[in-house]
């Protein structure tokens, strides 16, 4: 039990008559790089929304380090160490690259309003620490030279990277990546996956990622959960999932008997 970081216990999400996710159960172990895959509309993003508190599961609950996250607001879940990126990029567009990262670091800052207005040493020091840490993170992704540009002026691939940097700045225990390679070409994707594996080791993170591209997930994930129509149809190592008849059917359809 001790090495399970995140656990979903029979979570169900019902929108009116539609069961987007149906009593899904899975575990993500400490330090693991896990993948959540499935065809379009399988409910992958809905799972992420339940894990981060955007949706409250209709039934079932999510546990982080054995503690239930039920009823917590997204910002409270973020404080506990769960963070995410988005399938469609959601940066703070009008803000600079650096500001985007700084906001994510706020929860670790403790200074009051008066300290800020009076410019106390404590205020200046904590602003400086936050700034240095943000720049360090940006450097890993080679974004440090663009720190003061508006985030919306970055090319697409770098915006994706910035989302990851921003998520890392919350100092998470687990990072949920929603199609991090969406819209990237083959070599960019390959490079990104290496970076993800690298940050996992460097920050001692646990990673759960959603991906469409089967090849990519097979390359780096240690455990793969396959979702179809809101139901888990397979789970296991890449080899096991790859050979599974159910998975092939979900992706390619059932062969009609001729």
């Amino acid at each position, binding site marked *: 039990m001790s090495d399970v970081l995140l656990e979903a216990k029979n979570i169900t999400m019902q929108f009116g008559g539609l069961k987007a996710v149906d009593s899904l159960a899975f575990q993500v172990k400490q330090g693991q790089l896990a993948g959540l895959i499935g065809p379009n509309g399988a409910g992958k993003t809905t799972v992420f929304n339940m894990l981060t508190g955007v949706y409250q599961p209709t039934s079932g609950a999510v546990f982080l380090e054995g503690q239930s996250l039920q009823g917590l607001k997204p910002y409270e879940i*973020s404080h506990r160490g769960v963070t995410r990126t988005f399938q469609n990029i959601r940066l703070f567009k009008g803000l600079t690259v650096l500001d985007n990262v700084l906001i994510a670091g706020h929860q670790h800052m403790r200074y009051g309003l008066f300290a*800020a207005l009076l410019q106390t040493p404590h205020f200046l020091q904590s602003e400086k620490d936050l700034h240095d840490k943000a720049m360090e993170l940006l450097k890993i992704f080679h974004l440090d030279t663009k720190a003061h540009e508006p985030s919306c002026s970055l090319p697409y691939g770098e915006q994706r990277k910035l989302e990851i940097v921003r998520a890392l700045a919350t100092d998470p225990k687990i990072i949920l990546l929603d199609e991090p390679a969406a819209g990237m070409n083959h070599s960019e994707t390959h490079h990104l996956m290496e970076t993800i594996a690298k940050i996992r080791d460097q920050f001692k993170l646990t990673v759960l990622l959603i991906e469409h591209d089967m090849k990519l997930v097979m390359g780096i994930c240690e455990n793969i959960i396959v979702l179809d129509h809101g139901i888990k149809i397979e789970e296991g190592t890449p080899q096991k999932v790859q050979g599974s008849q159910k998975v092939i059917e979900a992706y390619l359809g059932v062969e009609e008997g001729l």
Partner: protein
Amino acid sequence: MQDFIQHIINGVSLGSIYALIALGYTMVYGILKMINFAHSDVYMVGAFAAYYFARFLGIENNPGIATLITLLVVAMVCCSLLGLAIERLAYRPLRKAPKLNILITAIGVSLFLEYSGQVVFGADPKVFPEVMKDFVLFKIGDVELKSFDITVLLVSVIAMLALEFLIFKTKIGRAMRAVSSNASVASLLGVNPDRIIAFTFIVGSSLAGVGSVLVGMKYPKIDPLMGMMIGLKAFVAAVLGGIGNVGGAVLGALIMGLSEEMVVAYLSSTYRDAFAFGILIIILIFRPAGLLGKYSVEKV
């Protein structure tokens, strides 16, 4: 020429008062995408809070810097508390409701404050305490710089610089910009949007409090409906500059103050309000997003 410069000074002084109030509209709009119609009545309550507190302390005929600062603090505190209460009791329960419901609630809160004000404070105008003596501070040529105008300018500039620092240099300001840009993402990054929204109401309302004391000083007749016209003009100023844009609100307010002063000086005081709203109509036709606002075309 001297006249013209004198009018500019008066116009800027009037404009900076509009700016203090316009900032409250624009900040709340920036973060919640709603027009807080009750804002002008928060301003009115600030004036009455200062009035009663001055009488309570017996400093209503005791002009000077100490009186000014005391009344500014009292008005700011009372306005912040009222702004906070309005947000908590009237707007927060409607956070997920359609925008129209919140808009109508805002009008309701505004009417509630105006008419409660008439019941509680009485409908008859009151004389605002003498905060400062109006005398000529400097004279450059024939241009007179009066103590009122200098005070209004100084206090507004300090308040706006503090706001600028708050928004662009502190973590809560960054959080405000983040929530304004995308509240749900900010929440996922550990920012509590409700706290930031409440804080925005506190800041906006306390600026209205500053405005109320400055207006009370300059035009010492206060009544429960005093917020209506100035609120409307500050709102026009915010729209003129591009609602949701802090710099735009100040720019819009200065344009409003100057043009109003010029209309009164060179045309006729009858047209001062007509001119103000004429500007609004023209802006809405030619630049619907305001001078500094960004007009975004929804991508399909």
